[in-house]
């Protein structure tokens, strides 16, 4: 007898992405470039985060035609984004057979109170987090993979660094805590006691955690690996650079060999301008995507 949609199958799929780069793409042509560069998966969407930020308006699940074209163009896994709490968008993506759904703060939330109950789906989900409490709540709802949020579409690594350091620092604290301290930590962090017990036992999060939101250069990607990310998502950073193919290849290689600094120097040479990027103080509180969801 075989069983589909188990935790092991859903979390295992993310384990196979480790050490890899997942790239945002908006059409089949970009998906092929990503695959040829060595991406471990692509994220199909209608607009990359920097365009969503620039153009404004409500950002929704991509036109299924785009997602379908991407799925037909590549043999690597295809992920797609659904709005936070949008049960129907998520079910549509599942019915289309996408390999992973990102319940994403990059899109305009459909529900400001409740996230999806991801345990109910056969397709696995990845969700954003800024701290161990958010991580615990998303995993509690059934997320099979995490990514630290960063600040999408900025090309500025500062928030991605902040969130990854926060999550991993909290994991280290939990691991060092006495058993009798865990319940109080659970109250303070907004994480379940059972979850914290599991983190302490494993010495790490129970699911893969990638970094996202602001990675624009090979050195940025390598930095996130250095800080303990299992892999990286690159959104606007590739197809908003001057030379997407070279950027994509260089970021893939820098992620795999993140402590080979001579190689990263070589990869970064003459790459041309990265995406221009935004300084955080120029982004108003209402425009910070990381503040969406809790």
């Amino acid at each position, binding site marked *: *007898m075989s*069983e589909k949609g188990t935790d092991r199958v859903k979390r295992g*799929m993310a384990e196979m992405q480790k050490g890899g780069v997942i790239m945002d793409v908006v059409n089949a042509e970009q998906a092929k470039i990503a695959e040829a560069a*060595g991406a*471990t998966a692509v994220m199909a969407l209608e607009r990359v985060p920097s365009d969503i930020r620039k153009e404004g308006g409500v950002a929704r699940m991509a036109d299924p035609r785009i997602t379908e074209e991407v799925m037909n163009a590549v*043999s*690597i896994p295809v992920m797609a984004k659904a709005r936070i709490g949008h049960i129907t968008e998520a079910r549509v993506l599942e019915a289309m*057979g996408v390999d992973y759904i990102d319940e994403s703060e990059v899109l305009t939330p459909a529900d400001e109170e409740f996230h999806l109950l991801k345990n109910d789906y056969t397709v696995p989900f990845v969700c954003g987090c800024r701290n161990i409490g958010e991580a615990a709540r998303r995993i509690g709802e059934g997320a099979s993979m995490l990514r630290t949020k960063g600040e999408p579409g900025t090309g500025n690594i500062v928030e991605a660094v902040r969130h990854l350091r926060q999550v991993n620092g909290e994991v280290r604290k939990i691991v060092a805590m006495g058993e009798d301290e865990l319940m109080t930590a659970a109250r303070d962090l907004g994480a379940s006691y059972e979850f914290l017990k599991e983190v302490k036992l494993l010495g790490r999060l129970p699911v893969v955690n990638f970094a996202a939101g602001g990675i624009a250069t090979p050195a940025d990607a390598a930095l996130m690996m250095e800080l303990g990310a299992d892999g990286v998502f690159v959104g606007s950073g590739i197809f908003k650079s001057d030379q997407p193919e070279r950027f994509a290849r260089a970021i893939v290689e820098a992620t795999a060999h993140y402590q080979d600094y001579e190689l990263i120097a070589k990869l970064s040479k003459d790459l041309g301008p990265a995406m221009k990027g935004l300084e955080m103080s120029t982004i108003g509180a209402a425009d910070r995507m990381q503040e969406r969801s809790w």
Partner: protein
Amino acid sequence: MKIGVLALQGAVREHVSAIQAGGAEAVVVKKAVQLAELDGLVLPGGESTAMRRLIDRAELLEPLRAFADAGNPMFGTCAGLVLLAKEIEGQEAAHLGVMDITVARNSFGRQVDSFEANLDIQGIDEPFPAVFIRAPHIVHAGEDVEVLCEYGGRIVLAKSGPFLGCSFHPELTGDHRLMQLFLNMVENRELLPTTAHYSKI
């Protein structure tokens, strides 16, 4: 005994734990120079196309083939099986091309079709818990290939000379019996049948 895990991408940590649980030393391999000190090599699960790009850019393809040619045992799981195969259905070129099998990629379907099942494996007494994730399978096995397990009429585990390959991910369960089988192959490598095909590549 030193066993490497090719660590360009994929489920490296899990294989390292399995090797250590079997009492061998595990080496995380990113460069060709590291191959010289190894008694065997594991090609982990991950994305085979991404691994191939990284193999090419790290100039590892010929060193890996030479490692195989020298009769060093190699164990490929899922993407690792695809890397070992002599032929890949629907693709012009293989990767290492050292094991006399033809594989079909993603042949059980997309992620929503990924599954767990208990397998009856030749030479292993109790059923083996297997996790299949967008898994490939062996559509054709050469004469010298020993089929160790079929599931739903498809070959999912096989052995040929120094090569062991499976469709599923033994590294995702705590069950180390397949890794033990591989470690035994490495330990008794002089007893492994030599096959002619990999010297032809």
